[in-house]
Structures are given as C-alpha cells and as structure tokens.
C-alpha cells in the first residue's frame, strides 16, 4: 500500500502513469478496431520510436548528464544488433560454429552487456583525453565496428547482411514480427518504461549527481570527492548498455541486419534526436526520438535530402535553442514566472 501511495504521490508520477496507460490502451483499441483504422505501419513506427528512445536516452547519459561527446554511438548499436544475432542465429555465429544458440531475449541481454564492457574499455583511454580527442576516438570506434562487421564475411556475411533473424518468444508467447509488429510493440514499450525508470533512478542518485558535477565543473567535482575517471567509465558503460540493448531489439524486430545501418550517419541521427528533444532530462530523448523518427519515415521519398535536413536542424538548434524542445518548457515557465512574478523576497 505504501509503495502504491508513493507511486501516485507526485504529480509527475501521475502524468507518467497516465501516459503509459494511454500508450497501452490506444493501440489495443486500434487493433480491435474500436478507434481509428488498424494500420500495421503505425506499430512499426511506434516500435522504432521506442527503440530509438532507449538509444537516445543512453546517449543522454553520456552527453547530457556527464558532458562527454560521443560521435560513435552507432558502434554500440552495432554491437548490440550483431551480437544478439550472432548469439541466437542457428546459421551464423554461435549457431554456425558451436551448434548452440541462445534464446533471443538472452542474446539481447548478453549483447548489451558486451556493449557495456566495450564501452568501459573505450572509456579507459578516453577519460583522460581532452574532449576533442574523445570525439575522434568515438568516430574511429564507430568506423572500426563498421569495418569489422563489413569485412569479416565469414562471421557476419559482410555487406550482404544476415536474414531470418530469430524471433523472440517468451514462455511460449511469440513476439513474431513477420506479420505484424503489434505484439512486439508491447515488448518494446515494456523495456522503454524499464529503461526510463532506471535512468531516473541513476540520475537522482549519488552517481547521477557525480555525472552532472563532471559536466558542470570537473575540477570542483574532483575536489568534492568524485573519482572522475571511474565515473566517466561508468557513464560510458551504462550508455553503451542502453544503446546495445536497443540495437538488439532493433535486429529482432526488423529480422535483417546489414552493416549499412551502423554507419557514421546513424550516430549523427542519434545526436540530432538528442539535441532536438533536449538533453539532460527524461522526456527530451523521448520527444527527440519520436519527432525525428516520424521525420525519417516521412522523408523516405526525399531520402536524399534527409541528412541535409538533419545537418541544418543541428545547426539551427545549436545556434538558437541548444536546450532542445524540452528546454522550451523551462524557458516558458521561467518567462511566466518573471512576467507575472512581481516582487520577490
């Protein structure tokens, strides 16, 4: 009873619960033709938004909270996707060489852990360097991952990619995405909620404060007892876990992966999502992922113009509103407070 009361104690939690309820109810009603027309495409879109929300939230931890640049997060997306596929596919990777496979859910988890380990390894040297170098290191990392999956064709089938990625099923309940992404949507929604809650918990704890302190003022953080190197490594590892997990979910949803998905441009898209939505808070990555994913799909016919649009987006956002959309609400509430405020003690 205490716990339930606690959940409904703050207005924020109420809003969160209401939104989640809507996110569950509306698709159910759609699927059963109660409202709108059932559209399979919508579920795909929602799944993508969810997956990118997890990935962008991960990037937010390293960029928005700890203030470290990473231009190579698609590399972790790649590790998560290829890792999960190679661990669960019967014809590639583990299945091919050792005749054993992991069930897809377990493979996603393992791949995410692997991504976290590599993220920590990457952060070791990175944590000492001036951030310019960090940006170069992360780009090199992205490129290296791409080269690995593209060139070791025996392992990954190179540029051709791997098809017939196994579908997820948990306790017999199938999340098969071949015919409809409806079931998969609820799986993704579940993980989005879990990952967002975990992010909130981390951010409001001693660890999260350490991250923010590093972002704000490294020297002062050091003086307050924050072990800078260790926290930077932790930040990268957590972030990599998020993005890797998202990569795994992505692979098993689409059913096919190839190196083209994990190019530098994908890292740029993650950054666009984060900057657009706003970094350093809970809803920013969600907004960014949602809007940019819709734009992505909407611009399919104009795919040549896509990256140009993103480049212009990033430029405009940085020049005029670096806090992104979620920053607007702070600006607005600040404005209201100031204009209606009157006297303050």
């Amino acid at each position, binding site marked *: 009873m205490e716990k339930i009361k606690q959940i409904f104690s703050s207005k924020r939690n109420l809003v969160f619960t209401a939104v989640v309820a809507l996110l569950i109810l509306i698709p159910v009603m759609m699927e059963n033709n109660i409202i709108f027309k059932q559209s399979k495409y919508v579920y795909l879109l929602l799944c993508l938004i969810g997956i990118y929300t997890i990935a962008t939230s991960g990037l937010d931890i390293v960029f928005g909270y700890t203030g470290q640049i990473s231009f190579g997060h698609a590399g972790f997306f790649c590790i998560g996707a290829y890792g999960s596929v190679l661990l669960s596919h019967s014809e590639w990777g583990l299945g091919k060489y050792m005749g054993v496979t992991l069930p897809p859910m377990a493979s996603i988890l393992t791949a995410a852990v692997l991504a976290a380990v590599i993220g920590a390894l990457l952060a070791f040297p990175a944590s000492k360097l001036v951030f310019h170098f960090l940006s170069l290191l992360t780009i090199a990392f992205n490129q*290296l991952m791409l080269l690995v999956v593209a060139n070791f064709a025996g392992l990954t089938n190179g540029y051709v990619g791997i098809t017939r990625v196994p579908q997820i099923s948990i306790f017999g309940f199938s999340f098969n995405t071949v015919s409809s992404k409806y079931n998969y949507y609820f799986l993704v929604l579940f993980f989005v909620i879990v990952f967002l809650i975990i992010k909130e918990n981390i951010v409001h704890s001693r660890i999260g404060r350490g991250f923010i302190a590093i972002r704000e003022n490294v020297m002062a953080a050091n003086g307050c007892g924050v072990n800078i190197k260790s926290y930077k490594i932790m930040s990268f590892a957590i972030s990599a876990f998020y993005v890797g997990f998202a990569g795994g979910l992505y692979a098993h949803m689409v059913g096919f992966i190839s190196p083209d998905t994990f190019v530098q441009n994908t890292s740029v898209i993650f950054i666009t999502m984060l900057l657009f939505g706003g970094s350093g808070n809970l809803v920013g990555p969600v907004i960014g992922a949602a809007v940019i994913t819709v734009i992505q799909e909407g611009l399919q016919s104009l795919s*040549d113009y896509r990256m140009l649009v993103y480049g212009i987006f990033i430029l405009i956002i940085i020049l005029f509103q670096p806090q992104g959309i979620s920053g607007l609400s702070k600006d607005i509430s600040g404005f209201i407070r100031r204009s209606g405020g009157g006297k303050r003690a």
Partner: protein
Amino acid sequence: MNMFISVLIGGLVLGCTYGMLSLGYSLIYQASGYMNFTQPNLLMFGAFIAWQCLEYGMPFPVALMFAVIIMFIIGWMMERFVIRILVNKKAKNVYVVLTTLALSIILENAAMLIWDARPHYFPAIFRNSVMKIGSATVSKESILCITVAVCAMVILQFFLNKTKFGTAMRAAAQNKTAASCMGINVNKTIGVTYGIAGALACLGGVLVAPTLYVSYQLGTQLSAKSFAGAVIGGYGNIYGAIVGAILIGLLETFVSAYVSSAYKEFIVYGVMILFMIFKPSGIFNAKVYEV
C-alpha cells in the same frame, strides 16, 4: 623497384593531401582551441568547384585559383557567421564541435544535390600524362600535387614566421588577450586562419582529384585518415601535421600494395587508436590532457 617508386609516389600524394587538411586542423586548433570537422568537406567542395570550372573550359591554373579563393571565403564566412556567434555566446566546446560536424554534413549533402551522386572524373591536366622516374612510370599529376603541396607548406611557413600578419596570427593564437592589447585585431586573424585552412583544404582537393576522382563522399573518405595523421604527428603542431600526414599516407599505400587493400583501413585506424591510447600527444608532443 618500379612498384616501390610508384607506391612511394602514391603514398606521398595521399600524404600531401592529408597534410593540407592536417595543417588546417593545426592552424585552427592553435588559433581558437577548437577541432574542426569541416575541413575534409571543404576539400571536396573545392574540388567540385574546380571541376565545374574546368567543365566550363577554364584553364587549369585559373580554375585552381578561383576555387582556392572561393574556399578561402567560405572558410572565413563559416567562422564569421557561425563559429563566432557561438564563441560570443560562450557556448560549451561540445556545441562548437557539433556545429562544425553539422556544417560538414550540410556541405557534403549540398554537394551531392548540386552535382549528383556519381563520381566525377577530373580531366587530365597535362597532355602527356605520364613521365618516368628511373624506370618507373608515374603520372605528372602526382608530381604536380607533391610539388605544389610542398610549395604551399613552405610559403605558409614563410608567411607565418616572416610576415607581419603571419606573426600577428601566431601571437593571437598563443594569447588572444595579450595580442589584442598589442593592437592586433584578433577577430581578423582568426577569420584569416579559418580562410587559410579552407584554402589549403581546397588546394589539397584539387591536386588529388586527378589521381582519385571527385565525389561528394571524397571528404568523408579522406577525413578519418587525415585526423589520424594529425593525431600521430601531434594535434595542433604545424610540423606534426605534415609529418603525421605523410606517414599515414605512406603507411596506407604501402599496406595496401604489399599486404592487402582490405586491411589498410584497419591498420590506419588501429595505429590512430593506439597513438590515442598510448601517446596522444603524438610525435611532436602537443598538449592534449584534461584534468
């Protein structure tokens, strides 16, 4: 022996191209403390402009000059109208670097839309395109590239060390406040620095274009290795930029010729990452550590 010479020349051509980029990185880093991702795409854009001029029938030297001047202006404008705004707003470093990335993407995709996505081939500059060194056959364009690049480096050194404005640029790069107290217009020197970097990039692009080709992806393909060269030589150090770039160019071509073409990317990235981990200050010991 023949193969050795042609591989050597090939490596030097690439090395000089990376060198033009790396010099730009070093100049900008010294002058403003920022890393700049636009250089490789300025190279590509400059090459396209020159190509377009040649298509209109301009003679090669004129096309080259024209492109270089345009890219100087574009480089200068980027600083004046984008970077400076952020610096004046006291934006965090992260955002400035991201902006250069955004500008780079805009350049790349603009080029793709203006001149379409297929590779364009540069017409031969010399009527009789090949010459002999010893018994090896090399293209005259390659020799031109290396010669012009070396000349550019020498002229740059002279400009920076022996002219009044060049010295002002160096002073402003070392200490903005002190320099402006001495009457140096720091905004102007920084603007010119970015302009020179753009011009160098363009020069590199036009010189390497006959040997490679011109496409909107040219910049991206060269960028990673040019950064590798800058890092290995010591990011921010002028001599380091040249030495590192040439080393990478040679490494890349020798590995590609004598080992395997597929592995050359791995080796270049591998070497860069190793340097970043174990000797980030590079050969010439530039300062790179944070707190």
